[in-house]
């Protein structure tokens, strides 16, 4: 188990080293796996496999088509495969999601709304969203509270 974790860490560090790192870039999304951090810029986010769905939300008017990589894809880039991830917003709103509850397609880190990027005043640049209309299970208090907008960082380190 320890050997496996060590190998994963080494591979992760090597992977992270190979990725384009743009520190403090605008629209940057910091992903941290233990001691290693990367900042994904918009291009890096856009290069990940994209998911798309249309849904309404309780915070917006009308149906919106959200697209972007799945949270699973983003934490996989950082080599996070177990435990709990902590997501932080620009206003220091923090939520935690067990990795076991993250599927390969849901939730997504939306970077486009109706095909257009959205800025900080519109909950951007990244918004963690679920396909709320597709299943009542996505309309619970837990899911709604996890739908963090103005997302700036993802980490597997528990907050203080």
């Amino acid at each position, binding site marked *: 188990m320890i050997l496996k974790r060590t190998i994963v860490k080494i591979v992760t560090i090597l992977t992270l080293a190979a990725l384009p790192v743009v520190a403090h870039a605008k629209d940057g999304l910091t992903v941290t796996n233990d001691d290693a951090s990367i900042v994904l810029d918009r291009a890096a986010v856009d290069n990940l496999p994209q998911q798309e769905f249309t849904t309404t939300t309780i915070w917006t008017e009308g149906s919106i088509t959200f697209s972007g990589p799945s949270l699973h894809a983003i934490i996989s880039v950082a080599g996070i495969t177990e435990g709990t991830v902590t997501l932080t917003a*620009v*206003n220091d709103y923090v939520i935690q999601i067990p990795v076991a509850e993250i599927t390969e397609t849901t939730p997504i880190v939306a970077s486009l709304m109706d095909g257009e990027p959205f800025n900080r005043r*519109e909950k951007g640049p990244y918004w963690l969203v679920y396909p709320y209309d597709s299943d009542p299970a996505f309309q619970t208090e837990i899911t709604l509270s996890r739908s963090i907008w103005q997302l700036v960082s993802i980490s597997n380190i528990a907050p203080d």
Partner: protein
Amino acid sequence: MLLLALLVVAFFILLVGARSIKTQIDLLAFASSDNLGWNLSQLDVDYRGMTIEMLEPITPGSPAGGEVTAEEFENIQRGFDIFYNRVKVVGATLTRVGVPDVIQEDFEKIAIARDEMADLIDAMDTPTTAQIKELCDLANALGAQVRSLSTKGIQHLSQIQSGAREAQHSAFLRFHGTSFVILGFVLISCLLALFLWRDWEKRSAQVARAATNVTNAVNAANSAVIFTDRSGKITQCNEAAAHYFGSERENLVEIDFIHALLDQSSLSSFLLYRDRPKSETIQLLARRSDNQAFPVEMSGVWQKDAEDEDIYIIYLTDISERLEAETKLKASRDEAKEASEAKSRLLAIMSHEMRTPLHGVIASLNMIDTKHLIDADRKLFETACECSNRALEQVNSILDHTRLIQSEE
């Protein structure tokens, strides 16, 4: 049928009731209104966060000493963007939940002021403290509305949630009532089921008794009783049938009665009789399992079984002994008849043979001249005549009797 209908009705009431209460509870779900409450409270928090960032560069003793640093401006922009988005979220959720005009008016004022501030900020590149102060004044003027919207909104949400709880209570009460109705249906169904069960048990016992009696009667019968289907295959038979054909009952089942148990010579008679039902019996030749033929007397009748299928019931009686007895009886009768005829023939012959000499005697007596006879001889002569005539009469009587018997036969 009634029981089934009652259970179906109960099921539907339960289903409709459960769906109805689920729908109502879903409609009354607090998830979205709780989220609105959170956003309203955060509106005040974000407003204050924004104003703190704005106050930072214009507060005496600021590190930049009267200038607005890029970092301070970035912090102001971030604080404003957070507030901007919060106002947008609150606006969307207020529209969705539906609020009184007074709250909506507060919101409109905040939205207008926010847009004015956005225009100001967007126009800034490297803002001066004076510009930030102007911005701060706008923000300060907004404080009362933000506070008012937050408190009024929270109060309104409390009312909504209170109403929702009452509606939930009512929904549960209705479901409670529905449950009692269902309970009633189920109780009636149980009583009906009990009644039907007892009736069914009684009927089953009667049917079982009747079936046992019929089975006993069939099995106790001396005649063979065989049930065949339309093709002639045996479906059931009694012990006598098994005994007749020298086999076991279970071995006879599924056997083709016509071709396996009847002699070839009787096939056409059987088929003719079966296809043209008659009330009288017919005699056939059957074959045992060891292929030995034996005569039977048969009658049959078409019936319908429980599945409304045609069945042909065959009644067979082994008439071997009866035919044997009849043959013996006939032989005895013929023997007796022959003896009687021999006797008659003897008598006739004898009578005939006796009559001829008698006629001779009588004729001879009649020719005798009685004038020269002495009295004693005359008496003897008369006696001889009388005796010969009487003998002739008796012989004639025997002949007549024999002829009469022969003619009767």
